[in-house]
């Protein structure tokens, strides 16, 4: 599997993601430059976390106009795998590849901490190495992770099993306290209807080595790699 990690000006989890894919999963991995038009033949595009363009306007609002993102849109339309992590998720929302928008965290502060996620849809190419209801311990680090979309959209997402990850407590209960950023329906990760574009706020690349405290995030990359 060939992965491409996109670098926007202001990306800062690009190397972290690259490191896990290349050194941890031993997959062919290349960087993709935002000004290019070339996806270099990758099988999966990863939009990493960070602060593209400083997130000064809205998170992801400017990155979506990059030349490369027009290619990524077409790639997604052709069914290619696209994984957006944190800022990458925000870019996917701004781009309209996933529905909804991000608001400031409910306590109006940046939050960096471990959270528990429940896998609500293990039947995607990003989660096939997990079980339904499995609890993953993965960190978040964001200011704007409070997912919002209108009630109709939410209903639609639930009906089609598009909510892949939800914030829960360590026992798997979706409590208000566990939903640290205040996301609608506790949504932490979403997939498009077709099942090839996933956006998630937590950082799986930070939870892919035992030394760093958790290996749960690795399951997501392994799912993609699995033949």
């Amino acid at each position, binding site marked *: 599997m060939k992965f491409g990690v996109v670098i926007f000006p202001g990306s800062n989890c690009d190397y972290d993601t690259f490191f896990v894919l290349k050194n941890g999963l031993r997959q062919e991995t290349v960087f993709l430059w935002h000004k290019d038009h070339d996806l270099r033949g990758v099988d999966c595009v990863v939009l990493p976390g960070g602060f593209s363009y400083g997130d000064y306007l809205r998170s992801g609002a400017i990155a979506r*106009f990059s030349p490369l993102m027009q290619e990524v849109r077409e790639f997604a339309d052709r069914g290619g795998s696209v994984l957006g992590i944190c800022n990458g998720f925000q870019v996917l929302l*701004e781009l309209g590849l996933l529905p909804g928008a991000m*608001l*400031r965290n*409910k306590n*109006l502060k940046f939050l960096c901490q471990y959270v528990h996620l429940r896998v609500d849809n293990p039947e995607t190419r990003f989660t096939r190495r997990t079980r339904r209801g499995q609890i993953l311990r993965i960190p978040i680090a964001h200011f704007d992770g409070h997912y919002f979309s209108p009630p109709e959209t939410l209903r639609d997402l639930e009906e089609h099993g598009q909510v892949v990850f939800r914030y829960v407590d360590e026992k798997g209960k979706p409590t208000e306290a566990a939903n640290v950023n205040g996301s609608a329906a506790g949504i932490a990760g979403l997939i498009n209807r077709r099942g090839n574009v996933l956006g998630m706020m937590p950082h799986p690349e930070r939870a892919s080595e035992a030394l760093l405290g958790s290996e749960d995030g690795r399951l997501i990359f392994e799912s993609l790699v699995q033949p």
Partner: protein
Amino acid sequence: MRVRILVSFKESVLDPQGQTVKNALLTLGYGFVKDVRQGKVFEIALDGITEEQARRAIPEIADKVLANPIIEKFTWEILTEQKKV
């Protein structure tokens, strides 16, 4: 030519920043404050286009770039001299 664009959350979207400001004002004793909504303002200086062109370009810019229509709405105006901040 200068234009001013105001972007704010739609009524249906919670505005926690506005709420926080409101609470701060109430604790400071400004009991007459009933509601606060916080938004963004952009002041843009334009050059080399006519007013008519601007009237077409500005809403396009606001809609495409400055506001996210899922959560935000905007208004805009061309600034006459005395209105500049």
